[in-house]
């Protein structure tokens, strides 16, 4: 077990399990001597069974990164992106051939990488600088790179057309927010971004791009912010007993994150570095970002409380402290289920913090450092947590409208999440880092990593407890399969991308919106993702946990009232109304909150959690984050208003659901059943 594995990091986004140094050179198949691409230089890097020389490998990674980012930002469609990549490759091959023949290599490549530098005598392993090319050059002979209108239709931050005259109205350039973590992938991510777009970024303090325009190099991107959100996963890592100073990630823990950010800030002066934490997601000031009061005012003094046994009720006081406590300082020994749930909640809140920062900084794009390996592992973990309907948000590139933006600018502002590393695996990132000479701040040794063992299950002697969360198991599976099937990560991520398109996206597409956006309030009240309501009926039918005791007491469950509020059910001393959870929260968030409530009780020591699982003696409760309470309460208000005004009953169970609720719980009475099964009883009672 490597030191990193022993460190017991349970951060579900922990990608420190990168392949070790030996994998950089060790996978070159016997007999392969030259680069697959240039056919000239010796093959030194293996990426998914394809062997490259150093320069061609770096070129390949950069092209993919930049193409994906440009596609996501609406520069061109996915089909055009593929064509551009093929053309870039062919041009580069031609240039290399010309260079070998002693011809003059042209400067620049289609994708913005200085192609001539790839094989221009640059020493192997050196950092290849991009040429002075804008985001999309209009000087290309075929003119296909003309930057057209930003297809990000819902954003008001359209790009200026290339070569626009001063008489045309100036539109603000899009700001971008890059989300990083203290991990090697983020180092590569920033390096790739800076390498690709350094010339087109508006530096801090330069409110306009006049200077660049005078020099003939118009800026295409506004400000770029780099954000690190401290999501509390360090706390679990610090709890681990085995911790080695040689751990590659040691330099990124605790206060050293600050020094890392400072170093990155000096390395990339054009980027603005910010720091945030889960506190921001739990702050009341975030709520208006997702839930505007101007659209449908709700009682801001009300909150939504998560009570014991999973009841959702209204409350007049806010108490998010228990939730904050378990997320930032969890009890030292937690079950694997609880750790998984807390990791999921952290991820959701981290995203909320990022989105609110996007609104605050007017960033149209939120760019995440998710590699194909992470996406594939996350896909499997999401499947196992019942997040199939939310897959588009979890691994795709959704566009979310933020109401705060609408309020301020008066236009529909939205944030598009992008994952430009989605076609690049962890192994390739590792190779990139090695070739670029990028390492941890104070570490010169390669990180320890042992190949994940498929035999090592959660109970094997070598596995740490933290290694047994769902995300950790998923990562290990991907790593294991990649050894025998190198394209596993990209296969899973591409398949997930194909299936992860929700109905709402298709509806928007039919309306003509190229990239359908949705309002933040349309989805789950916690994770904002689309979800299938009425999952309670599905659960109840397939996991029966009670039998009617006597015929006279069999009462059919009343169908939930429209909007999910049952006005006759008064549950707590606060005279609050119970809320149907399956109308406002997705199944996985509800399950995660249930586990969080159990952890709160463990933390408070106010009760025990029975191993029967279905009942708890604890009195643990907490209110949901303010933004979540606002979204839920606003939804209930809108639903009840819609029912009254339109005369249309919404959110009532279907006939099938009602029959399942009634018939699903109907069995023979105890006495009749006993007579039926008496011959199968084992022993006496």
């Amino acid at each position, binding site marked *: 077990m490597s030191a990193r594995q022993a460190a017991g990091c349970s951060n579900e986004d922990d990608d420190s399990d990168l392949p070790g140094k030996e994998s950089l050179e060790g996978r070159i198949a016997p007999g392969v001597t030259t680069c697959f691409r240039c056919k000239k230089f010796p093959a030194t890097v293996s990426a998914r069974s394809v062997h490259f020389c150093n320069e061609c490998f770096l070129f390949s990674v950069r092209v993919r990164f930049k193409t994906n980012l440009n596609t996501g930002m609406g520069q061109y469609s996915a089909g055009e992106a593929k064509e551009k990549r093929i053309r870039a490759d062919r041009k580069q091959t031609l240039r290399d051939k010309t260079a070998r023949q002693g011809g003059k290599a042209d400067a620049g490549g289609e994708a913005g990488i200085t192609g001539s530098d790839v094989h221009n005598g640059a020493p192997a392993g050196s950092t290849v600088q991009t040429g002075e090319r804008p985001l999309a050059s209009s000087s290309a002979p075929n003119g296909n790179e003309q930057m057209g209108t930003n297809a990000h239709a819902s954003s008001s931050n359209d790009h200026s057309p290339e070569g626009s005259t001063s008489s045309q109205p100036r539109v603000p350039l899009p700001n971008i927010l890059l989300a990083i973590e203290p991990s090697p992938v983020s180092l590569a991510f920033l390096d790739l971004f800076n390498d690709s777009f350094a010339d087109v970024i508006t530096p801090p303090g330069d409110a306009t791009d006049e200077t660049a325009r005078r020099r003939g190099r118009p800026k295409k991107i506004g400000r770029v912010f780099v954000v690190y959100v401290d999501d509390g996963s360090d706390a679990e890592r610090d709890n681990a007993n085995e911790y080695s100073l040689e751990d590659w990630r040691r330099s990124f823990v605790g206060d050293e994150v600050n020094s890392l950010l400072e170093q990155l800030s000096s390395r990339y002066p054009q980027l603005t570095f910010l720091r945030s934490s889960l506190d921001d997601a739990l702050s009341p000031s975030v709520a208006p970002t997702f839930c505007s009061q101007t659209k449908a005012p709700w009682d801001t003094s009300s909150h939504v409380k998560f009570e014991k046994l999973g009841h959702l009720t209204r409350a007049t006081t806010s108490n998010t402290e228990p939730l904050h406590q378990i997320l930032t300082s969890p009890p030292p020994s937690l079950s*694997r*289920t609880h750790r998984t749930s807390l990791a999921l909640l952290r991820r959701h809140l981290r995203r909320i913090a990022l989105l609110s920062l996007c609104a605050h900084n007017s960033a149209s794009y939120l760019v995440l450092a998710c590699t194909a390996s992470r996406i594939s592992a996350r*896909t*499997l973990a999401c*499947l*196992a*947590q*019942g997040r*199939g*309907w939310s*897959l588009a948000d979890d691994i795709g590139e959704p566009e979310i409208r933020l109401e705060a933006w609408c309020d301020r600018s008066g236009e529909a502002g939205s944030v598009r999440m992008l994952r430009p590393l989605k076609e690049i695996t962890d192994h390739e990132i590792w190779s990139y880092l090695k070739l670029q000479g990028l390492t941890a701040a104070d570490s010169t040794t390669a990180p320890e990593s042992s190949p994940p063992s*498929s035999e090592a*299950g*959660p*109970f094997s002697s070598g596995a740490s407890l933290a290694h*047994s969360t*769902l995300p950790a198991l*998923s990562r290990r*599976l991907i790593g*294991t*399969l990649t050894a025998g099937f190198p394209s*596993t990560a990209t*296969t*899973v991520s*591409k*398949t*997930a991308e*194909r*299936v992860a*398109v929700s*109905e709402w996206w298709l509806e928007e597409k039919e309306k003509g919106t190229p990239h359908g956006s949705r309002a933040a309030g349309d989805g789950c009240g916690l994770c904002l993702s689309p979800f*299938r309501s009425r999952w309670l009926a*599905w*659960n109840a*039918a*397939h*996991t*029966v*946990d*009670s*039998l009617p*005791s006597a015929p006279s007491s069999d009462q059919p469950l009343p169908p939930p009232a429209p909007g999910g509020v049952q006005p006759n059910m008064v549950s707590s001393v606060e005279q609050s109304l119970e809320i149907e959870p399956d109308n406002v929260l997705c199944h*996985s968030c509800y399950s995660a909150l249930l586990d969080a409530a159990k952890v709160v009780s463990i933390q408070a020591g106010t009760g025990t959690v029975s*191993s029967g*699982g279905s009942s708890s003696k604890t009195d643990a409760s907490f209110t949901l984050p303010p933004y979540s309470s606002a979204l839920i309460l606003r939804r209930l208000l809108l639903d009840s208003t819609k029912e009254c005004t339109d005369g249309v009953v919404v959110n009532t169970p279907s006939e*099938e659901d009602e*029959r*399942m609720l009634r*018939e*699903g*719980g109907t*069995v*023979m009475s*105890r006495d009749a059943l*006993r007579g039926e*099964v008496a011959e*199968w*009883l*084992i022993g006496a*009672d």
Partner: protein
Amino acid sequence: MSAPKPKRTCAVCGVKKPSLKRPKNGTMVCAECFFAIFETEIHNTIIAAKLFKRGDKVAVAASGGKDSTVLAHVLKLLNARHDYGLDLYLLSIDEGITGYRDDSLETVKRNEKQYELPLLIVSYEELYGWSMDAIVAEVGLKNNCTYCGVLRRQALDRGATRLKVDHIVTGHNADDIAETVLMNFLRGDFARLQRCTQITTSSSSSPIPRSKPLKFAYEKEIVMYAYLKKLDYFSTECSYSPNAYRGNARTFLKELEAVRPQAILDIIYSGETFDITSSKSDVETTVPQTCTRCGYMSSGALCKACLLLEGLEQGTARIKLS
């Protein structure tokens, strides 16, 4: 002196002492309640999915293993208890795997007597002239599951046609379906992902619908039910299964279950909620045809089974698939 610990009682009836812990959700229940709950959940599945209608003739694909044995037992029980009005049959396939299928067939023959259900056994040798032992000897251990799956599917259809049944039910359980979802993701089999969680499937080449009443039943609970009920079943893995790619998904699923038992149902839930992006124009519409070699319904000139058999007979199977 500390107060005595309260005696733990069954979470359902609250009366009896619990005798087992449900793998699905960890509740401690007594055996009676477990049986009742297990049978109720299967009943819910049948009712919610409207699997049968009164008067249907239903063939239970019986292998002698725990899943099909429990399925036959529970289906017979529910048919009587809730008066489904079904005619039940047992249909068994003899793949010709020495040391595995020959033993399990003896179990099916005992089931025939125990449940008083008519039994039909159809063999590969009889239908195709090849047993699985012979096929494995020809193609090796890497792609043998592909052959077995295709041939078994057609064999079931042929057997069901002989019995003149309206429906086939198989013992696929929640673990199987969750594994299939994972496996199809890992292999990027987008087409199969669309239908792998469907409880009832049929196609132009397999017109008799097949259903999975045990779709939401955990494998562990099936084993527990069979054990506590003392059902007669044959519990051994197929001799050729260890090399299957599915084993990776199975191992992963077991690890997930150990961490979070709900994960199996959640994977099925996720699979059901996929919205597939394929447009209508992408969907191939095939005209049902008849295989020119065997006369079976097919989507092409030759059915899949005949395609594979041709390769075997011509000795090209090993070259093609390797």
